């Protein structure tokens, strides 16, 4: 690029031309001032002329769900133009890079998507998003959500985002035929049973006991083993300030994790989560632990799904030792400070938090509404089971650290690094030391 230079007007031109240049320059400068004047000084207090909604919902299913919510929004707010500012890329990596620069330049969208919970901490601490306590009160949203959920997404007692959907992390997918061949009666209920089952699969069939993908799926497995081994309360306590990661109980859980890792796929690092989950329905692996988005991938039709049948090709259960607990993750929407069309944003959040909006979005996305009063008739197959679990009295909620609920971005990356190093050195003591360090540096 170095050689390329913009064309400039030669200096020795006649007076007439240079005057014209001056006029153009003055017009451009004036226009720039007008534009910046519009965006800069006014915080758009009650501007409802439009709403720019920033998300990474571009994939199959989720894009349809967003379109359905957009239609609902336009029906309810005929005067407000809906601008869909979605950026492609799984779990929003690219979108978040774009968002960070927009927020730093004080050019926020009117509302942006974020995983509910600690993933929003950086924005909260930087003062980039508004508190939504009064929004929840005015719209009667508090009783509509599970109280444990609201507690777990609050920062210092305040709410900052409106959850739209819920996915479940602690799901075990298994191949019933391989379990039969290995002489395993049913899905393992505890971590100990799980390890016994993995041994049986390895000894009696030539199949992969537990299929695993690239490094992050090991992080996903780790959170499930931690939850299954420690129990819900101890797991939730790990993410409070000053949590004790050096305890013997954590050591036990990590030792279990190390044991389980011995039964995983050799080529894990060159497989993504789809490949790892697919191994179960293809009869190549007995078990896989992955979030419930795997269900949509298994049962959907080509090209985005595998067209497999539940009960014959695969079955599911809560991950070992986690029955009765819903390890959740959620997409939510926020209200950035200085949103150019604040009234439009509030109108959008009302739709995102409404029963109708969530019932339009979730069946298409393959998730369940975060509210407890969703229309049960709309959710069939696995989603019926998931909604039943979500609203079951006495269910305990735990946040998924890998999917943004419990860990801020530093701790999240540091745990990922610790797990990546563990995959190479298999040293449980080093892993635990690194997790202790990650918690200490989390700044939470």
């Amino acid at each position, binding site marked *: 690029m*170095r*050689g*390329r*230079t*913009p064309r*400039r007007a030669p*200096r020795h031109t006649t007076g007439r031309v240079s005057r014209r240049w001056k006029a153009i320059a003055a017009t451009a400068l004036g226009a720039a001032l007008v534009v910046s004047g519009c965006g800069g000084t006014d915080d758009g207090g009650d501007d409802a002329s439009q709403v720019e909604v920033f998300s990474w919902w571009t994939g199959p299913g989720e894009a349809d769900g967003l379109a359905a919510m957009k239609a609902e929004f336009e029906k309810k707010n005929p005067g407000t133009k809906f601008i869909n500012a979605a950026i492609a890329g799984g779990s929003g*990596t690219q979108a*978040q*890079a774009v968002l*960070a620069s927009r927020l*730093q330049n004080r050019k926020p969208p009117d509302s942006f998507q974020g995983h509910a919970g600690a993933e929003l901490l*950086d924005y909260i*601490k*930087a*003062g980039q998003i508004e508190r939504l306590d009064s929004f929840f009160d005015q719209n009667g949203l508090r009783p509509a959500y599970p109280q444990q959920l609201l507690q777990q997404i609050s920062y210092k007692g305040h709410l900052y985002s409106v959850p739209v959907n819920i996915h479940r992390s602690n799901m075990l997918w298994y191949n019933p035929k391989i379990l039969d061949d290995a002489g395993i009666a049913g899905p393992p209920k505890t971590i100990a049973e799980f390890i016994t089952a993995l041994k049986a699969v390895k000894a009696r069939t*030539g199949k992969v006991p537990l299929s695993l993908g*690239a*490094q992050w799926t090991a992080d996903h497995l780790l959170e499930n083993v931690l939850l299954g081994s420690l129990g819900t309360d101890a797991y939730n306590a790990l993410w409070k300030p000053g949590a004790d990661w050096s305890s013997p109980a954590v050591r036990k859980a990590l030792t279990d994790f190390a044991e389980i890792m011995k039964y995983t*796929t*050799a*080529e894990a*690092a*060159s497989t993504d989560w789809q490949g790892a989950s697919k191994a179960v329905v293809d009869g*190549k692996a007995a078990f896989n632990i992955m979030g419930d988005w795997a269900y949509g991938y298994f049962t959907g039709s080509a090209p985005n799904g595998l067209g497999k049948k539940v009960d014959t090709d695969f079955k599911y259960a809560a991950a070992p030792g986690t029955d009765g607990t819903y390890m959740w993750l959620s997409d939510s929407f926020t209200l950035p400070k200085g949103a150019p069309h604040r009234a439009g944003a509030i109108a959008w959040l009302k739709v995102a938090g409404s029963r109708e909006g969530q019932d339009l979005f979730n069946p298409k996305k393959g998730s369940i509404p975060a509210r407890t009063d969703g229309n049960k008739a709309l959710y069939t197959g696995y989603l019926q089971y998931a909604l039943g679990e979500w609203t079951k009295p006495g269910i305990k909620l735990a946040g998924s650290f890998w999917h943004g609920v419990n860990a801020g*971005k*530093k701790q*999240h*990356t*540091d745990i990922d*690094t*610790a797990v*990546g*190093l563990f*995959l*190479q050195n298999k040293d449980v003591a080093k892993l635990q030391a*690194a997790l202790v360090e990650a918690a200490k540096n989390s*700044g939470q």
Partner: protein
Amino acid sequence: MARRWRRWLPGLLLVSPSIIAIGLFVYGLIFWNTRVAVSGKHDEITPYGFDKGRNFVDLWSQPSWPGAVQNALVFTVAFVGGALALGAFLAFLMDKGIRAEASLRAIYLFPMAVSFIASGVVWRWLMNPAPPQRAVGLNQLFGKVGLDALANSWWQHPTWGMAAMALPAIWQMSGYVMALYLAGFRAVPEELREAARVDGASEWKVYRHVVFPRLRPVTLSALIILGHISLKVFDLIMAISGKQIITYVPAVATYVEIFDRHDPANGATIATYLLLAVALLVVPYLVWSVRAERTR
């Protein structure tokens, strides 16, 4: 008076946009990067401040960093060595005058036109370390032709994995090295070779004592070009392995620190180290080539 400025002003005007652009977007950004590297800005909210270069020391106690440096070194040695050797060998064969040289030259050069991101996807599949019953790619090929012993874990080998990661890069760049060497071979005057032959030198000795010594500048250029590509390698790694620790290299670490960990100061520190490492290669080369030009 007027004549004198007429001589240099148009030239200056012509180059000044690029001087300004390079000053701003290359040197200005290098300055800004260094500024962030010596700051204490480890998240978005902390003001920049000044950290006396502590980041440059602290980085070495980060658990993932020594591995990233080691990976980059293994990759560099394998890639630069491999591409130089293969490129020189191909050029040597070409120089011996084979049929259809022009089309072969094009075939060897073609891989360079493919981006690392695209070829990486294919190599990710080729270098899959699955055991025989699930083997795909190269391992499957080895199994089919009875060379099971050659099947291996490729880039997932704990110590030498990065050497396997260099294979796609060697495949891609050796044609280019071949072109450089071929030009070098052709620049050796036929009279010199003739003279050596008249003196009774064998064909090997002609190469050993007459041709090879005259290839040193070519080798040096190739070394510099490959070396700086190698140190900055990012797209190939991201396409084949992503951000996994097993193939962590400094350029990937920069990305992770800035965009995943939200730590601008650490990211800038790594970027500065990368710049220094490349400068270590390029600056002596520039000095040397400027001197060579002056003496000419």
